[in-house]
């Protein structure tokens, strides 16, 4: 299988750039914007030139396998890690100048749900409230009631699910404009996970807040995200709205009749599978122009196969890996 034309960055934002009336190119409409964000740990390049644009009011899924660099990106967004190079803008402000202002308006739930173990649920609510001027008592109370959190229990006695719910309550109660969730369903059982994703994240999105969440579970992202970015080995492989991604990434199958056409001139090929009597080509950005170019190569009646987000994820990651192998 040969690989052609995979790029990091904003390359795949072409085509359908608008979604929910938000123009991805309009800086003022971006909740998060990163430019060539890079982070190196010694010799290890954890994040490699990632340029992301998260439109305001969207639910944005950061998709990648474990160790892909999602958490590192999020930690840089939150100012817990300094980028080796590149820039981060959250809600139009930069971290180095407006960190306090950003933290007033941004909520973050980390994968490990860091809390003070010795506090009771009631104490942690009271403690967190002290830091946020926008704290909404009614909302906090309603969330606590909805989640059935035991107010007198110490946090160290809570289950993982309840810890996640408490973290979310503490984050949502001050009404942040942007909510960043790092692997929010990690370690949760399927029922809690589904409740978390389908009810909570969707609800937050419907309130008009921006949600960025990372996950390695494609199904989760596909279910709730308006936009997705696929990360692999620190690189941004694709970023687009989920619908436009599905519309632009296609697999095309055609018979080869013994001779395989030279497809090197056709742009945006993710991968080619050579079977015995046919070829299957995956295109990152399949358009009418691609069809015309295929016809010029004698491929006049290709079968266009639909791809799920999982297929797109798997093919793009696989293609990237094979490209890396070829390069080495």
């Amino acid at each position, binding site marked *: 299988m040969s690989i052609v034309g995979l790029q990091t960055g904003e390359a795949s934002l072409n085509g359908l750039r608008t979604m929910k009336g938000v123009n991805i190119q309009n800086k003022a409409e971006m909740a998060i914007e990163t430019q060539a964000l890079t982070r190196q*740990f010694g010799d290890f390049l954890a994040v490699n030139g990632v340029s992301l644009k998260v439109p305001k009011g969207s639910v944005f899924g950061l998709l990648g396998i474990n160790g892909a660099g999602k958490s590192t990106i999020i*930690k840089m967004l*939150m*100012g*817990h*890690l*300094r980028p080796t190079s590149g820039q981060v803008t959250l809600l139009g402000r930069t971290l180095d100048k407006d*960190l*306090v*202002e950003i*933290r*007033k308006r941004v909520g*973050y739930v*980390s994968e*490990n749900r*860091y*809390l*003070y*173990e*010795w506090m009771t649920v009631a104490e942690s609510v*009271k*403690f*967190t409230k*002290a*830091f*946020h001027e926008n704290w909404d008592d009614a909302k906090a109370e309603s969330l606590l009631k909805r989640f059935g959190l035991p107010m007198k229990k110490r946090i160290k006695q809570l289950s993982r699910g309840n810890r996640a719910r408490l973290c979310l309550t503490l984050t949502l109660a001050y009404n942040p404009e942007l909510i960043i969730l790092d692997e929010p369903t990690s370690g949760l059982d399927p029922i809690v996970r589904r409740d978390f994703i389908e009810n909570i994240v969707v609800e937050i999105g419907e309130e008009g807040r921006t949600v960025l969440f990372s996950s390695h579970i494609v199904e989760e992202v596909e279910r709730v995200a308006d936009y997705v970015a696929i990360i692999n080995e620190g690189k941004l492989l694709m970023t687009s709205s989920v619908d436009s991604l599905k519309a632009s990434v296609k697999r095309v199958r055609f018979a080869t009749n013994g001779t395989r056409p030279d497809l090197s001139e056709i742009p945006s090929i993710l991968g080619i599978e050579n079977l015995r009597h046919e070829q299957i080509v995956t295109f990152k950005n399949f358009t009418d122009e691609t069809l015309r170019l295929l016809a010029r190569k004698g491929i006049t009646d290709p079968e266009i196969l639909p791809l799920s987000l999982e297929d797109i994820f798997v093919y793009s990651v696989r293609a990237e890996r094979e490209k890396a192998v070829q390069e080495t």
Partner: protein
Amino acid sequence: MNGQMLKALLWKEWRETRWKWLAFYVAFHIPAIIGTLVFTFNKWVRFDIMVMNNSMANQYLQTFLLVQSGFVITAGLFLIAFFAGGAVAPEIDNRSMFFLFERPIRRRQILLVKFAVGAIQAIVCVGFSIITTLSLGYAALVVVASGVTVSGTWHQFVSVLASGLRGTLWTGVIGLMVFSATFFFSVIFEKWWVGVIAGAVSLIGMFYFLGGQIFEWILTNVINSSKAGQLNLELYAKIDPLPIITMLIVTSAFYFSAEYMFGRKEMK
């Protein structure tokens, strides 16, 4: 940082450290308590409190002050290093510090509250333990010794207590310096015990280079100027601004270094 945030941070620090520092404070009194009990109940000890009278009270209180000061500037400082090692590192190690880092508050404000609470506790422990042990010792003397009356010894107690306040100033400043050094190590090293070891090593270094002077500032002058059987507290912990200011400058340097490191610390 507004008042509510400050109150919340102080509450958290207090709740996290109250038992530790209470244990610490009690530990500072243990030698004095043991000494008092031995003097009171052990018939074979020459220094028997029970048979004392008003004229001997002064000598007893002065000895009490010197013994407690000696304890505080040796073992007490190691205790400070031990406890200050846990001021910041455990919260970074177990990542609970993330919780504060995500709040709209500057790191230097978080650190300042931690330092202030810890420093006050350290000063209270090393400094005020001199006053409290002296008071406890005096109370024991009045209660136990049949020949000692409050009216007959009060002025002696007040006079020794006044000297004790000078000792409190000295040991408080030295304790603050030791606290700030170990606090700095606690910020640098994520494992609290590494900070404790670093603090203890630097303390040994301090004793090696300054030990003689530290004892001289507080104790040695008393012993050298004393005549046989009579202590002279006039030179006890005599206020000398230069070393005190120097130690406060060193303390500030450690604190601001800790603040710088804390500000740059990454949470991986």
